């Protein structure tokens, strides 16, 4: 290895290089972990509030129930494929960021197979609830996250921390990407006070293939005094707005952390380069130009920050996969994978650190007087 190469410096100064490497790796780990947690929170919210609306539009009564005229108007739309009376509730699921909700839809037993097929969910174990029975098919993730089994009973009546009203026996397990549970419409009506309410309080409206946007446009014109309409487009847009705000907040916190770390590492680097001024001074006295010395310093800083950044990212990915595999997975908590945004958050770490270091070191190298170095007497 050439004596003045970056590799030689790293190889022979492992302890020095390690301290800087460690700081950058830990900074990347910290920032990417925050990104991961933010992503986990966001994906949980999206799954719960937005994801089902990819398949149907929810029309909910603004008052007690949806007026007959409105229901007939929806059914009469040529873009309407089906319109199922539905009740939406939530059951508790344990996530990385604490308890959260998973959708439980109640609909007529006869409609359930078709509904599940439309939303790409399927029965993994057991069976679907029988009509009129307080039975529930629970999503796989909830089963794992709470350690539930077929035959267990869930609901507020048996669990003070339960979210689902009443008492429900698990008869089946549902798989798929949406993580929804199913009960029968009549049983839920009996369980809640809605049994005495005339009419329907909520519909899941399915559009004909390729006509979802057109149907949503029409449904959005329904009078707000009568119904509230939850379309995928509107909810997704609102969700993205919230996510942007969340990421902005996280970004503000991250940037302060990154700035502090960049300055700390920059100062550490600066001190280490100050200690090396004799080395640079002698090289300058031997005829190595400032440009070459600056290039050498830049190579070292760039290589160290880039290597540390890549290691930090690799460790974050490996760490997240390991946590998912051995810690969170068995508990039914899904960690999102590191995405481009998480990686983007970590980019300022090496950039700022290298920038701060180079700014100070280059300034010093440009002002380097080799004579003052070699005139120092032992």
């Amino acid at each position, binding site marked *: 290895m050439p004596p003045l190469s970056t590799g030689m410096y790293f190889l022979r100064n492992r302890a020095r290089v390690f301290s800087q490497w460690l700081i950058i790796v830990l900074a990347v780990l910290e920032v990417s972990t925050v990104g991961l947690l933010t992503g986990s929170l966001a994906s949980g919210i999206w799954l719960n509030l937005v994801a089902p609306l990819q398949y149907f539009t929810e029309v909910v009564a603004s008052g007690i129930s949806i007026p007959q005229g409105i229901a007939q108007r929806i059914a009469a739309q040529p873009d309407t494929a089906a319109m199922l009376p539905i009740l939406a509730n939530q059951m508790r699921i344990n996530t990385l960021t604490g308890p959260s909700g998973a959708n439980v839809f109640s609909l007529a037993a006869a409609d359930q197979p078709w509904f599940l097929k439309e939303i790409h969910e399927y029965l993994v174990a057991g069976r679907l609830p029988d009509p009129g029975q307080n039975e529930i098919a629970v999503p796989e993730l909830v089963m794992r996250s709470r350690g539930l089994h077929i035959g267990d009973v869930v609901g507020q009546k048996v669990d003070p921390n339960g979210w689902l009203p009443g008492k429900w026996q698990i008869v089946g397990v549902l798989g798929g990407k949406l993580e929804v549970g199913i009960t029968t419409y009549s049983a839920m009506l009996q369980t809640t006070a809605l049994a005495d309410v005339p009419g329907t309080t909520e519909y899941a409206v399915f559009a004909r293939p390729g006509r979802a946007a057109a149907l949503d446009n029409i449904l959005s014109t329904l009078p707000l005094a009568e119904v509230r309409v939850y379309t995928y487009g509107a909810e997704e847009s609102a969700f993205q707005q919230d996510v942007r705000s969340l990421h902005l907040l996280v970004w503000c916190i991250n940037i302060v952390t990154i700035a502090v770390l960049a300055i700390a590492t920059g100062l550490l680097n600066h001190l280490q380069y100050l200690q090396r001024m004799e080395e640079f001074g002698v090289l300058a006295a*031997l005829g190595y130009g400032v440009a070459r010395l600056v290039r050498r310093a830049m190579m070292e800083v760039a290589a160290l920050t880039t290597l540390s950044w890549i290691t930090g990212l690799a460790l974050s990915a490996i760490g997240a996969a390991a946590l998912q595999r051995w810690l969170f997975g068995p508990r039914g908590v899904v960690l999102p994978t590191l995405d481009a945004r998480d990686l983007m958050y970590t980019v300022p770490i090496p950039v700022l650190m290298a920038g701060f270091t180079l700014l100070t070191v280059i300034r010093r190298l440009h002002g380097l007087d080799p004579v003052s170095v*070699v005139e120092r007497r032992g």
Partner: protein
Amino acid sequence: MEATSRVLITHDVGLSYHQGHQRIHALRHVSLRVEAPEFVGIHGPSGSGKSSLLYLLSGLKRPSVGWVEALGHNLGAMGPEARNRLRRQMYGIIFQQPFLIHFLTAAENVAVGAPRPNRAGVREAERLLARLGMSSLARRRPHELSGGQRQRVAAARALANHPAILLADEPTASLDHHTGQELMSLLCEYCRTSRALMVVVTHDTTITAGADRIIQLWDGQQTCEDDPIGSARQE
């Protein structure tokens, strides 16, 4: 860079600087001409301007007045990069302290002085150390060497580019008499065989015993040129 003639010339050079409001004259009206394979010793007490003269000769400092010509190049008229290039290719400089890079082995430190400090340069440096009787030190780091060994490695570094001009500033200051003499023999031998010119700055007259000429400096001024025996007698 091709050396037209192996000559080092100063023309009435002076070096002055400000210290507060005071103007200090480190050197005044120094003119000399050293031609290969001459060995010139520069004597004088501390503060006489010996080291300043060496910095002017090497191009590390520019004279306030007068000019320095090395191998046909006017150093003052050259840009810093060209001056650096000339120093790297044609000069060998030995400082009072060895200033070895702490994390490099002796051979790697020597290779730093070579035109191309790469792996081939390190192998060449190992051969040079072997020729100088230091092959056993080649793989040692500076902290594993004695003061004398370090200074000899620094001398080898100065020879690694086969310089036409060899400059040494008190090269034996930190060495015992015997090691100092050994080092000087090594440098003289190089100059003889390579037809290089050598200027050695020292206040120790014994190490320039083999010099062709001695130049005396006093208070920044050249007082006389003498033969070494006469100079030693003066001391």
